[in-house]
């Protein structure tokens, strides 16, 4: 057996089969969810590269696969990444039972996940950019609606993500040309700049993030939630993989300072724009921008604790975006829109969806007792010791986000145009209650729930 075949080849084949079965929505959702869960289970119990005996049967998962002279490598250090990635896929696929996203959601989502795993596994790294581009192209049907012309958000998403490709390819050439040493400072500077610009496009770093709120507004909330929670995390993991493998980048303080600066800029601008949003889906888009900003600050600080923030924050972020996506899907389906005027008195009409949305937003903003509070508190404490001048700017951004959330809370609790409560699906209610419960439990016992995630850093041994 071969690891790239199990975690890349097989999911691609299954996604093709699920595409053919897409008319049988429930079956496809169950197949996609359980298949992803099976991949998580295999990653947990089968050590890659080691011989395992089951009675007379011996099994070994080979970490490398060679295709046309290039290698796909998934070793034991990557197993936590595989658990995380396919766990995220399972989370989103199972929620599709309630959210009812486009019928191709599961097959496209699985194919996208497999290609992004291939982007992590491929060696040499410059092929990652090409594979990410393929994943972007595949993701387009997720965020458009048949029968309705594509909006400017989809087009900007395609343009900005595609423009990242040339820069990363050129950076790959420059780094290869310099022999991965510090011999030619000009070439190293050029390569660092090109790589930074390439990832700025892929991660939607300021000022290339205008597509995020637009896509959040145009796309079905659940599909947008999947895209926003999966793509940035995968691209950040690929970025960490680059940094881990390239001494030139790892030793460049300029690169990390630029990451930190970009992160602060994203939090400030995202927070300020968030404060003025009248559409809650767009607010979710700005929250995505701010979250990426926090991750960039964590990576830019380049300490063990700050890298730990990256690993620990993935699950609470996933849970919060899942709740927002589920809540907003129910709201949009029931009231027809996500503008302020549609959301008046939402607590009276759709109490569970409204609660899920508001609590998840508060969790992302770092409200005490909720999942991200302790993580953000620790990160900002570290930031205050390393770069004191940045703190007021981060607070301005967070203040903007809190202002927006409290404004929407006031709208949700205001008198509704009609008192009638709208029935919410029972499964949706159960999932929402479990999600909210976990946001509080993680907030109260962060170490117990999240410390397992620190194994993610094993994939990047130089940190």
């Amino acid at each position, binding site marked *: 057996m071969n690891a790239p075949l199990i975690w890349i080849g097989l999911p691609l084949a299954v996604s093709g089969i699920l595409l053919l079965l897409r008319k049988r929505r429930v079956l496809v959702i169950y197949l996609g969810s359980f298949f992803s869960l099976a991949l998580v289970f295999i990653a947990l119990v089968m050590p890659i590269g080691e011989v395992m005996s089951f009675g007379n049967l011996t099994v070994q998962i080979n970490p490398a696969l060679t295709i*046309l*002279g*290039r290698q796909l490598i998934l070793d034991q250090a990557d197993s936590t990444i595989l658990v995380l990635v396919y766990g995220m896929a399972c989370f989103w696929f199972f929620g599709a039972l309630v959210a*009812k996203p*486009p*019928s191709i959601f599961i097959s496209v989502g699985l194919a996208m996940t497999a290609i992004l795993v291939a982007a992590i596994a491929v060696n040499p790294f*410059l*092929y990652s950019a*090409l594979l990410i*581009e*393929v994943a972007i*192209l595949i993701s*387009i*049907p997720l965020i*458009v*609606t*048949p*029968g*309705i*012309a*594509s909006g*400017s958000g*989809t*087009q900007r998403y*395609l*343009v900005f993500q*595609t*423009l990242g*490709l*040339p820069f990363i*390819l*050129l950076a790959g*050439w420059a780094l290869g*040309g310099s022999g991965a040493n510090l011999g030619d400072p000009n070439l190293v500077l050029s390569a660092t700049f090109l790589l930074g610009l390439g990832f700025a496009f892929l991660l939607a770093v300021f000022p290339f993030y205008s597509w995020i709120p637009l896509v959040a507004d145009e796309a079905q909330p659940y599909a947008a939630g999947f895209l926003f929670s999966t793509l940035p995390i995968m691209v950040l993991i690929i970025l960490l993989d680059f940094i881990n493998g390239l001494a030139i980048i790892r030793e460049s303080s300029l690169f990390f300072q630029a990451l930190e600066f970009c992160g602060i800029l994203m939090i400030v601008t995202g927070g300020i724009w968030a404060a003025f949003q009248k559409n809650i889906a767009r607010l979710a888009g700005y929250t995505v921008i701010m979250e990426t900003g926090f991750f960039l600050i964590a990576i830019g600080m380049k300490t063990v604790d700050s890298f730990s923030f990256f690993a620990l924050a993935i699950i609470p972020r996933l849970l919060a975006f899942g709740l927002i996506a589920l809540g907003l899907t129910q709201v949009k389906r029931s009231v027809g829109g996500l503008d302020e005027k549609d959301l008046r008195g939402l607590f009276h009409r759709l109490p569970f969806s409204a609660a899920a949305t508001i609590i998840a937003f508060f969790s992302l903003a770092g409200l005490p007792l909720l999942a991200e509070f302790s993580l953000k508190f620790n990160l900002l404490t570290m930031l205050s010791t390393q770069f004191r001048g940045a703190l007021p700017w981060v607070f301005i951004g967070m203040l903007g986000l809190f202002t927006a959330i409290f404004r929407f809370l006031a709208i949700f609790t205001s008198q509704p145009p009609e008192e009638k409560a709208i029935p919410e699906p029972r499964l949706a209610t159960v999932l929402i209650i479990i999600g909210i419960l976990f946001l509080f439990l993680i907030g109260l016992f962060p170490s117990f729930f999240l410390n397992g995630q620190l194994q993610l850093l094993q994939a990047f041994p130089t940190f």
Partner: protein
Amino acid sequence: MNQTLIPYFSLFLILLSTLELLVGTRIRRMMIALAVLYLGQFLLLINSWSLGLSAVELVAGWMAMAILLASQPSVEPDVQFINRQGTVFRIVAAVVIWLLVYLIAPNVSLLSSLPIEVTWSALILIGIGLLHLGMTTRPVKVIIGLLTVLAGFEVFYASVENSVLVAGLLAMVTIGLAAVGAYLISLPLLEAAE
């Protein structure tokens, strides 16, 4: 044809085709221009890549053009999207890009070790492609803009990387972009199945 004249001939093809793509409104003429653009790119690529590898890019480009053309509605709407002032503005913008390219090409040529006439063509493709992306919201024009930028980038990249796999993946991205473009163009006509 004299070998030294080929880059100038391809520059001429690229200038003509990018100008038509920028100011054109008729889809069929734009698609012919796109085919000419890829022919110009092919003539530049054979300086760096083998004939076979360059031909892969040419075929991929023409396939992309065919996919975009096939996705158009059977009856071309007789609508002029750009008025005369718009056309003049676009031509002036293109001239500004040409001037910029003329000014920065010597430095870029030095960095990339490409002949100056090849650098002109590559930079014009990238510049006009970016101009396209900044001026339009029509899906077909956005895709043409992206394909133009990528065509220019491939000319540069061919001089530093001659891997068959990279060339193949870039060709796949070109066709994939066209397929996404075709999907976006035909999206309003698709049945709302959900």
